């Protein structure tokens, strides 16, 4: 009986110890602060711009591996195909040390006119936390894209017609001359 009590006490002590021991501290993504620059942009359709993100971990534990995902939301109902805006939306973020920071940037091309919010979402990517959350969203960068017709089709048409016509006449002339002399 004494032995049974002793074993039970040891098991309880082990369970309590496991519950109370500090977990190999990984900071939840919710503790990471995200800052984006610039805060707003006024550009013209087709223009390229870069969004720079700085991730700061103010907690006392390192973060787990994270994924930073770029998103563009239209505020005017325009359909946004993100593949057209950026060829590399998702970046892996290695664990950030306590008090440390990391930086990433996205090269983006504005392919639609309208008003948009560009933001970054952080997702946990550790072996235990992947798919569990919580997610962290950055403050949005407000991007206003003015539409334009960059190229003048009317100006291109005369060149597109005249050059081949002249060269076609020259080629036909050369063939005619060759046949006459043959």
């Amino acid at each position: 009986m004494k032995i049974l009590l002793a074993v039970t006490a040891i098991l309880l002590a082990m369970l309590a110890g496991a519950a109370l021991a500090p977990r190999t501290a990984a900071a939840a993504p919710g503790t990471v602060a995200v800052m984006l620059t610039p805060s707003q942009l006024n550009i013209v359709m087709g223009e390229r711009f870069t969004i720079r993100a700085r991730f700061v971990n103010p907690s006392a534990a390192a973060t787990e591996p994270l994924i930073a995902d770029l998103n563009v939301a239209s505020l005017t109902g325009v359909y946004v195909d993100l593949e057209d805006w950026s060829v590399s939306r998702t970046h892996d973020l290695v664990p950030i040390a306590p008090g440390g920071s990391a930086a990433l940037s996205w090269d983006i091309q504005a392919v639609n006119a309208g008003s948009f919010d560009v933001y970054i979402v952080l997702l946990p990517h550790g072996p235990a936390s992947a798919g569990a959350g919580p997610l962290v969203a950055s403050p949005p960068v407000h991007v206003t894209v003015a539409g334009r017709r960059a190229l003048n089709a009317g100006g291109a048409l005369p060149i597109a017609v005249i050059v081949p016509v002249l060269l076609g006449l020259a080629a036909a002339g050369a063939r005619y001359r060759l046949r006459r002399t043959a």
Partner: protein
Amino acid sequence: MTASTNLRPAGVQSRIPAAGHGTAGWWVVAEQECRDLWLSGRGPLLLFAFSVLLSVMTYLTASNQVLNFLEQREAVGLTLQIAVAVGALVTLLVSADAISGERERGTLENVLLAPVSRRTIIVGKFVSALSLWLVAFVVSVPYVWVLGRGVSVVGQALLLGLVVGTLLAVALAALGLLISGVSNSNKVSLSVSLFLLFALFAPTQLPTGLPQGWFGDLLLRLNPVGAGLHYITAVLVDGHAWTRDVSYLASPLVTAVLAGGALTFASSRVLRLTAGVSGA
């Protein structure tokens, strides 16, 4: 000058006239080859096809609603890339016919009767093939101008196209002559050159913005056409300094030097008659 060029049979005339005083032999050969290329109708016909392609591309770039989000620099870059790539590749095709074609038509004997060295004949053919690229470049000028006016990019684009295009044309013309010289028939020469043309041009159609790793970058740098076009985009569209990505021009330069060197040193083997091959 090789022994065979000195042994001209009595009464047999070369179609290449003898060089006059003060006229270099290669110039006389080049003049004759250019006359064949441009007056036979082959050169003008190729240029006509080239201009139709550029016209379609230019009009689509300027008018198509889907393509119209392109920045003006990108539109100029796209048209310039097509002009450089197609101009240089047409040069490859013309040079691929230069020796094997003459051999097959039975006119190589006449060429070899000219009182000039075989190396001189190859230089003349090389210059003639390059003339196609230079005229193709002149044809592309109005297209670049109409797309690039207003953003002060035309001068830079034309200079860039001339430099990169000439480098590519030199490399591909030398390669074409080499292939033509070692091929037993014109069919083989043109087939190999066409395959080379597609092999060099196909990778340039892959999406450029995707991360490709060191191996992808190595393949891009090894392909003279891909590397040259990448350099044009880097300078014209991305706004990089001319010196920043200049290492991409290494493969066109190395190809030009190696193929040109092989042509120079093996000119007597490249420009040879083959038993049983004659158009007569």
